[in-house]
């Protein structure tokens, strides 16, 4: 079962020429395109080398820890690195020595976004108000990962409580993009995306409320998978907007993201919004390239969303998306253009709903039971000071917006209307997905921008979420995978392609994504930073 992902022997299968007629696109390794092998699953590689005795979990852990030591001062992906990584790895080795059965994630090093609870390990959602907070329980996703042998490397940086698109809104540090240290990694799961891109961990967990997995995946050149709402338990995920939040996965390959998703999926009795839908065995989708037919995606209907390629989208991003569409066509897909009339309504509706829910969800951070408490003479002062000093500016702004939107007299005009828009968006997606197997669009209107560039312009930053928020409003699964590079930074900046599927049809996204990734020639999405790091 694990042998399906062999290093390819031949890359001549698809005579596609990528990046033709595009000056904006820089090839990551210029003339060497034909020798770049498709990316390999790190999870499977790890398993293979552990089972064959080629190396030990401890050795692997050491190499990752040393890479963290080398790169972390520049990148600042982690808010906390676990002291137990080596110990956990040695336990895996002992199990191997005893001939015990290994879980599918044995020895896999996993970064966990800081808003996902890890028992006894700091979990702060990058907020002062939870500084030093250590939860007494693991999030269900983390619990599952541990049960399957995965090792939590540490807690990754993020925008405070997930509110932001650059990871600059972290109360503690700014994470750099491994492709260009002067740029943002995206957000809010910027730490998780950058850590995978920089190979500080093999895979990571993020959370996606309006694009917080997909946009940083695009900015960092990794695969980001946002599952269907309800596919993964939210228990232990610090709520930002409960009806939109999902835990998502990052990997350097589609297979890794898919296998991680499989590990954390399924109904959880501690989350009433988790689904009882069966979780298919995604792994059968990850065929090795040499098993591909000549047109491995023959007949797959792909709709390209017209509204995502209109004004406001960088030309480089637009052409990379069109290139990706051509690549899919070459693989056998039937490409059509689809229109989602409600598309532009999503962004304002999203910000109303997300802010409203967050204003309620963040009420529990009052300094009374846990987190930072500012002593005061009377109760209201205690609330004011604890929350005033505990929350950052972006969080306060959204709490204010949400409180306003839910206030008597405004509820109908904002919250209720936004819910009506949400219904419209769902309907449009449903119709488009009845005609198509998947929909594609860019993951973001641009590649990674400079740190500080949009810091004082929240509306510009919010506008960057336009590609992704609708998917959350509709609760659909979507995956972003690197599809090309645009100019910028020392050796180009990655651009991600977003694939959107029908509810609970992650399988199709993984299948199409995997074939797309394995047959995409011309660039390897390894950031230049790693050239100097062993």
């Amino acid at each position, binding site marked *: 079962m694990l042998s399906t992902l062999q290093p390819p022997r031949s890359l001549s299968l698809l005579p596609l020429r990528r990046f033709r007629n595009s000056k904006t696109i820089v090839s990551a390794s210029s003339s060497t395109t034909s020798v770049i092998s498709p990316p390999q699953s790190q999870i499977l590689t790890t398993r293979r080398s552990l089972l064959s005795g080629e190396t030990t979990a401890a050795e692997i852990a050491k190499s990752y820890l040393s890479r963290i030591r080398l790169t972390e001062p520049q990148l600042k992906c982690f808010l906390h690195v676990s002291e137990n990584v080596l110990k956990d790895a040695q336990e895996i080795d002992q199990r191997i020595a005893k001939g015990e059965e290994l879980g599918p994630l044995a020895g896999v090093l996993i970064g966990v976004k800081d808003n996902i609870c890890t028992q006894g390990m700091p979990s702060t959602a990058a907020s002062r108000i939870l500084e030093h907070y250590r*939860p007494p*329980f693991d999030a269900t996703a983390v619990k599952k990962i541990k049960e399957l042998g995965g090792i939590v490397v540490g807690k990754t940086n993020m925008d405070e409580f997930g509110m932001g698109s650059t990871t600059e809104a972290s109360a503690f540090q700014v994470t750099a993009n491994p492709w260009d240290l002067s740029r943002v990694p995206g957000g809010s799961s910027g730490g998780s995306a950058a850590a995978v891109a920089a190979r500080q961990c093999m895979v990571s967990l993020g959370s996606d409320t309006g694009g917080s997995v997909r946009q940083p995946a695009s900015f960092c050149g990794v695969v980001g998978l946002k599952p269907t709402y309800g596919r993964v338990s939210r228990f232990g995920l610090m*709520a930002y907007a409960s*009806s939109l939040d999902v835990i998502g996965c990052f990997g350097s390959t589609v297979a890794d993201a898919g296998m991680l998703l499989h590990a954390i999926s399924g109904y959880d009795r501690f989350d*009433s*919004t988790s689904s009882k839908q069966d979780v298919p065995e995604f792994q059968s989708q990850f065929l090795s390239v040499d098993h591909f037919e000549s047109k491995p995606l023959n007949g797959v209907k792909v709709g390209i969303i017209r509204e995502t390629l209109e004004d406001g989208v960088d030309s480089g991003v637009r052409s990379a998306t069109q290139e990706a569409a051509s690549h899919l066509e070459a693989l056998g897909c039937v490409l059509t253009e689809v229109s989602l009339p409600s598309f532009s309504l999503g962004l304002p509706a999203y910000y109303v709903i997300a802010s409203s*829910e967050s204003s309620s969800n963040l009420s529990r951070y009052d300094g009374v039971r846990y987190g930072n408490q500012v002593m005061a003479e009377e109760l209201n002062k205690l609330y004011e000071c604890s929350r005033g000093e505990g929350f950052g500016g972006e969080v306060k702004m959204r709490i204010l917006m949400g*409180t306003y939107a839910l206030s008597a007299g405004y509820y109908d005009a904002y919250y209720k209307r936004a819910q009506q828009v949400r219904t419209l968006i769902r309907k449009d997606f449903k119709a488009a997905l009845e005609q198509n197997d998947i929909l594609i669009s860019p993951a973001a209107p641009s590649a990674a921008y400079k740190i500080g560039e949009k810091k004082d312009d929240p509306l510009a930053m919010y506008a960057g979420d336009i590609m992704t928020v609708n998917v959350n409003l509709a609760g659909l699964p979507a995956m972003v995978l690197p599809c090309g590079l645009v100019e910028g930074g020392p050796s180009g900046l990655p651009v991600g392609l977003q694939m959107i599927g029908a509810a609970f049809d992650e399988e199709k996204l993984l299948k199409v994504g995997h074939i797309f990734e394995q047959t995409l020639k011309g660039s390897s999405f390894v950031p230049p930073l790693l050239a100097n790091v062993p």
Partner: protein
Amino acid sequence: MSTTLFRTFQPNQFSLLGTSLLRRRRSNNFSVRSCGSQTTTTHEAKQSSPTRVAPKNHKSNKLDEILRDYEAVIGIETHVQLSTLTKAFCSCSNNYGSYPNISICPVCMGLPGALPVLNSKVVEFGVRLGLALNCDLSLKSKFDRKQYFYPDLPKGYQISQFDIPIASGGYVDLDIPLEFGGGHRRFGITRVHMEEDAGKLLHSDTGDYSQVDLNRAGVPLLEIVSEPDMRSGIEAAEYACEMQRIARYLGVSNGNMQEGSLRCDVNISIRPIGQAEFGTKVEIKNLNAFSAISRAIDFEISRQALLYNQGKADEIVTETRLWEEGAQKTVTMRKKEGLADYRYFPEPDLPEVILTKEYVDSIRASLPELPEAKRRRYEAMGLGMQDVLFLANDVSVAEYFDAVIGKGAEVKLAANWIMSDIAAYLKNEKLSINDIKLTPHELAELIAAIKDGTISGKIGKEILFELLAKGGTVKGMIKAKDLVQITDPVEIEKMVIQVVSENPKQLEQYRSGKTKLQGYFAGQVMKMSKGKANPGLLNKILLEKLNAKD
């Protein structure tokens, strides 16, 4: 479990069963309802109406005059704490002692990342109560968040139901006790909704700090909102009492007011009689006894009527007032500055609550006979209203009574035994009717044995207490103690002759006109028979002998 009405129910000045609470306050204390039987009216002075508590410095007759011009409009919000095994949204035990913060978990503490999961028993209890209150059920309802900050509210919001309650549009029927004028009433029920309780704040003696106890946080509640249909303190107290009774009949709550398992907030306004629009509404809290509800309302009516009468109607403001039991008055707790905005919105962590018709039907089928139905049935059996109210008041007593008459006992006799001797015994021994050893079957046997003359009523009472305490059968006890009534006239006559002849002095006095001495002779004969002589026969023969001219 529910103890009996005899101990914990409510103050009652008319019966032996009055509680200490009653006696603690004032001799002419108010009583919500009479549980008394015909044998128990001697305990305290019989009063025909509750005392209206008037503000000091006002002559009550003048006040009565003023009150005649106004009508009170009263609605009640009742919170019923449900006796589920676990809390509403987590698996913490709902049964905790007084030690703080021992029944808590990440969910009811509102830790980051914790999510609520609905306890299905809460829905079941909601449906039960909704049906019992003749409500329409929402087959599709939902939860909402009611948002406000307070340290006893861990999440910063209470999970409640806002615009779609699980049940609405019902009513409740009840009977006003005779001593308060009697009569049947129907009060509308606006809605019943599910929600969670908050924790408790413990304030330090010095007032320097407060501590939070979250044992109660997340405990399930049903809130029952009445229509503003009540017009007096008595009606309101009777309404609250009926809510308690229904909750206990249904087994959804122990309904204990003192423990806070049943909490009533009263909304009250008054208006000049004839005026259609409502006056300014005042809310009264801290009512933890039915008597407090009635007295607080009567106080409030007087207070507001006086203000009206003195042309100070504008001093009646929308506010929350607190009932002070010690001072017997209401005082301002907080004035409401505008309407509180709770920013309700649908709880995104919980799915909608969908009820199927089959589910509702199955619950409907499992409902017990409710207090109103019981009362009507007892009434139809020919019992007087006082008996009806007494017997239907406590579900255990009603069940016991039903079992006794189910064994064929005569209705009135069964009622009398339960309401007098058994009730007195329970009160003295501080027991519940569920604790006694006398089975309904044996009580029926006892009643039958007296009725058919096997034993005398006096003997019956004597063995009753032994049966109550130790159990056993009536037949066995009659046999073992040789208690069969003497109904043979010859045997009785023998004893009469002996007694008469042994008391020549008394006989002479009797015959010279002191006929009261008949009782003395009867007592002597009864003593000689060890209480077994049939009293009717005894008296008949005794009279013959005493009056015989020999």
